[in-house]
């Protein structure tokens, strides 16, 4: 047993069960007497429903029950709530139309749930669902931002005129306009951020299990945040108090944001299990996931930078349209506002920024946070715009960035868009990345590639993000309807082993290892005597879950605070046992020592005394060694860094291959370097996927054209280069670990690095910008148009 504490690349404790097929995922769970639900979904993008004839389905073999929206309405089941409220420019609240669990009167996107059939087997439920007769009357669809904003567009919700959910702004437009009026140069870019389908490896699943005797409901679900689901579903949808509702999120096979939200199927199976008095299971099929999991991104923006003659950024002006889909998913409204526009300073000293965002309803699947959530949109816009500034001013793109970086001595740094950065060193991450990528040797590689008939390009992205969300009061003032602290309970057992109960939820991040390493470091307990428990509201005091790269910075900090309490209590017990003053007790390496003496007690001595309190300060101290801490972060954390992509394009076919990728990130304190590297690599894989391959494509009628793996291109191993990952860390100054977060940096920093490289490779064709994904067909069109023509894409 070597070094296992903070900084050790300990192998992941959880991988043995995952790699051996012994994980316990929701679909692996089967409850006695369990029935199966099949959700009948709309195959129309927009239609009224005159009526639903369930009679044939209800009589089909094995069918136990068929429920529609009318059944839920009769019992006053609420709609799915939205967890974040945004206000318009004029101060009025956003439009928040109902989001029924099962459609009532109208369907608004392909995949909108209409009815649920519950039967003895899944096959029977599916067979019976084909017998449902649904009286659709088709309506014209608004299947894109442009279609929904066009004059006379179909209205997705009758009560939302013009399909505008909100029209929000940040910054002082008049001031920014004034800066632009006097600027040396204004550089403008029109860009899109492509719509993505998350595609976690494990499709969503849910089991509702109602206990007739206790009146307690249990929901097993594929969630990143079981307590949040308990709160949302219990309080707003099904009206079940917390003491009667247990939510279990067991092993979860990837989330990337898509499993944050409270989905209709969770409410359906929970409610239905009480109606039919038997457990009810639903598991999504992959095709179903494409049209029922929240999608990501989908922005159209105009971005303008005002610069002086030296290329200093004077002001940034951005106008963005964000597609919300047909309904507001749980956290959708905050993504294109507070997780996006507040990031538009990036790592630059741009003194004034104005951004306005129109959020728009369309007849498409709801759009919400997906790995990076708002920050990839900001980073893509900004890092593309900076390259456009370099092109238009003739200033070298690296030099331009250096001139505009927030200097290392300027922290804490208040940006003009609300955020205050605590730490960072952008010159260093840039310098190391340039070195690791052999930036200076690139022109030779370009020349060599040309000799092989290939167009080679290199691109840089010096991104910044904000994660570790978030100070509850700040989030609340910005519209969050929840707190964003995290909870940890540390239980030191009588014989000294430790169980950590955390409100964070691991769905691939390796928490069981990283969090255990925090305990190794702080309490000196060996790794194999530490277990991490998560994902069950019956076991964990409370929790806000895992998203926004918050688990270590917020959840880990809660553990540190709880362990501080353990040590403080342990010192009192140790002082009693060793007849010393508490002030003289020191704790290190699992041992309490009386300072300046050789008297000591191990943590196990202390825990044993705490649980067998024969010789114990019982008048002053409760027995036991079990402490809980709620940690509310003081600020966001601000990882950043430099990503460099290098591509080769086959000019005959337009195919792009990313041949080198170099990341140097500042993620704060690293607990497990191997896990950090894996997280960054995975994020970059998804970022390269977004840049080159992935696109959710709807036709004008609102049918999803990329509705399966046959047409939606997930990145695969052969699409990816060897990814060179390194970190150059500055510590977060406001949490006890100094950690910032690493889960999303890859997906945030990499897309602009790839697109910048492609634009560089195609510079002789006059390419100023290219929207994602940079497919071979798009690139061939540019090449086919010939050199130096200014191609739009």
């Amino acid at each position, binding site marked *: 047993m070597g070094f296992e504490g903070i900084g050790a690349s300990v192998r992941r404790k959880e991988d043995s069960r995952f790699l051996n097929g012994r994980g316990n995922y929701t679909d692996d769970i089967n409850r006695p007497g369990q029935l199966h639900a099949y959700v009948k979904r709309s195959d129309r993008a927009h239609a009224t429903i005159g009526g639903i004839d369930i009679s044939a389905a209800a009589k089909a073999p094995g069918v136990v029950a068929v429920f529609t929206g009318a059944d839920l309405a009769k019992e006053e089941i609420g709609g799915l709530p939205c967890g974040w409220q945004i206000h318009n420019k004029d101060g009025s609240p956003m439009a928040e139309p109902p989001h029924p669990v099962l459609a009532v009167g109208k369907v608004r996107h392909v995949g909108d749930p209409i009815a649920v059939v519950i039967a003895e087997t899944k096959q029977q439920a599916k067979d019976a669902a084909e017998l449902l007769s649904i009286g659709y009357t088709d309506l014209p669809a608004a299947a894109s931002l442009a279609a929904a904003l066009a004059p006379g567009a179909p209205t997705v919700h009758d009560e939302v005129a013009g399909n505008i959910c909100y029209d929000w702004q940040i910054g002082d437009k008049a001031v920014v306009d004034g800066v632009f009026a006097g600027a040396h140069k204004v550089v403008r870019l029109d860009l899109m951020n492509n719509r993505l389908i998350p595609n976690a490896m494990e499709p969503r699943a849910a089991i509702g299990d109602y206990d007739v005797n206790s009146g307690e409901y249990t929901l097993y679900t594929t969630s990143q945040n079981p307590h949040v689901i308990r709160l949302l579903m219990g309080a707003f949808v099904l009206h079940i108090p917390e003491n009667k509702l247990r939510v279990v999120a067991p092993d979860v096979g990837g989330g990337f944001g898509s499993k944050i939200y409270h989905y209709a199927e969770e409410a359906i199976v929970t409610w239905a299990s009480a109606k039919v008095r038997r457990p009810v299971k639903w598991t999504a099929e992959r095709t179903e996931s494409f049209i029922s999991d929240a999608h990501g991104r989908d922005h159209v923006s105009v971005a303008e930078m005002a610069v002086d003659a030296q290329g200093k950024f004077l002001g940034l002006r951005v106008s963005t349209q964000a597609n919300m889909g047909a309904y507001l998913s749980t956290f959708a409204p905050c993504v294109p506002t507070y997780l996006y526009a507040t990031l538009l300073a990036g790592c630059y000293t741009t003194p004034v920024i104005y951004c306005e965002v129109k959020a728009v309803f369309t007849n498409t699947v709801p759009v919400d946070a997906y790995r990076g959530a708002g920050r990839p949109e900001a980073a893509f816009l900004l890092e593309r715009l900076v390259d456009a500034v370099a092109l238009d001013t003739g200033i070298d793109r690296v030099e331009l960035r250096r001139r505009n970086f927030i200097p290392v001595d300027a922290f804490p740094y208040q940006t003009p868009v609300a955020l205050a950065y605590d730490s960072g060193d952008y010159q260093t991450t840039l310098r190391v990345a340039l070195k690791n990528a052999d930036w200076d040797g690139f022109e030779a590689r370009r020349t060599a590639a040309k000799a092989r008939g290939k167009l080679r390009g290199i691109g840089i992205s010096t991104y910044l993000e904000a994660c570790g969300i978030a100070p509850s009061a700040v989030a609340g003032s910005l519209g969050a309807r929840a707190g964003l602290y995290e909870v940890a309970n540390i239980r030191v057992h009588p014989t000294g082993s430790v169980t950590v109960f955390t409100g964070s939820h691991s769905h691939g991040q390796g928490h069981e290892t990283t969090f255990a390493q925090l305990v190794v470091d702080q309490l000196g307990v060996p790794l194999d005597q530490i277990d991490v428990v998560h994902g069950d509201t019956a076991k964990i005091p409370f929790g806000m879950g895992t998203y926004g790269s918050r688990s270590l910075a917020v959840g880990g900090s809660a553990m540190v605070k709880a362990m501080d309490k353990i040590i403080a209590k342990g010192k009192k017990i140790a002082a009693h046992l060793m007849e010393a003053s508490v002030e003289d007790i020191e704790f290190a390496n699992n041992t309490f020592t009386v300072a300046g003496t050789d008297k000591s007690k191990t943590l196990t001595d202390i825990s044993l005394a705490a649980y067998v309190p024969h010789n114990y300060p019982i008048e002053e101290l409760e027995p036991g060694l079990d402490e809980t801490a709620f940690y509310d972060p003081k600020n966001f954390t601000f990882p950043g860094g430099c990503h460099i992509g290098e591509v080769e394009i086959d000019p005959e076919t337009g195919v792009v291959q990313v041949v080198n990728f170099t990341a140097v990130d500042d993620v704060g304190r690293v607990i497990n370097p191997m896990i950090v590297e894996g997280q960054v690599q995975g994020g970059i894989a998804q970022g390269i996927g977004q840049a080159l391959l992935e696109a959710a494509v709807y036709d004008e009628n609102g049918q999803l054209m*990329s509705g399966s793996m046959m*047409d939606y*291109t*997930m990145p695969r191993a052969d699409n990816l280069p060897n990814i060179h990952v390194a970190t150059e860390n500055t510590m977060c100054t406001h949490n006890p670990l100094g950690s910032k977060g690493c889960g999303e940096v890859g997906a945030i920093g990499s897309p602009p690095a790839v697109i910048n490289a492609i634009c560089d490779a195609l510079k002789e064709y006059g390419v100023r910008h290219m929207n994602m994904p940079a497919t071979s067909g798009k690139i*061939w069109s540019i090449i086919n148009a010939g050199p130096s023509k200014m191609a739009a894409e």
Partner: protein
Amino acid sequence: MYDFAYQKPASLADAVKALGADSEAKALAGGMTYIPVLKQRLAKPSTIVDLSGLGLTGITVTGGTVTIGAMTTHVAVANSAAVKAAIPALAALAGGIGDEAVRHRGTIGGSIANNDPAADYPAAALALGATIKTDRRSIKADDFFTGLFSTALEQGEIVTAVEFPVAAKAAYEKFRNPASRYAIVGVFVAQTSAGARVAVTGAGQGGVFRHTAMEAALAGNFSAAAIKGVTTSPADLNGDIHASSEYRAHLVGVIAGRAVAKAG
């Protein structure tokens, strides 16, 4: 999938009888296309007649002909020393179909009988001038592939083997759909005793087709340079979210050129 009856006949005659007796019955070879179709409830056969018990596997090379039993898997063709020696391009093609799992289940007979417009084997069969043997007759590849997912096979007719004449030169190149990895454009070129033949899969609205302009250009000069200027009209080609018909038309030229160069 919907319920169906399942039969696994032990003789070709029984299989033909089972399929002939019921127009809703469907033959199953490797199932690499048909089972996903069933799982998506896109087909509702009365009976599945499994052809795996008919002894239709095996590869023989005699007198300038490679004969591959209809139920021979792609991996068997890809790994066959005899095929590699006689028509290396055919072995290479088989080794590039789908993924490892598909290659272990999928069969040549299933592939050509299904005639997916993006499948690989139809291009090889057409370019090499193969003969498709069935329970009742022999059909020239030129007559076999009649359109999207359609062939000259009669109801209940079972492919038993495919005979490929050995070509002097041959090669297959494909440009894959980035998502499905099927061919967006696949081109099989062959210098055969009947002259140069070029078959294109993935691109045509009617499925696999022979590129006669390229064949003419290659007739006197089997080299990539010979077809450099030969264009392909996008009019009869597919266009979808992955590739426009114009892009496909361009790719036909590029991929054909690469195939010819590879054929040497």
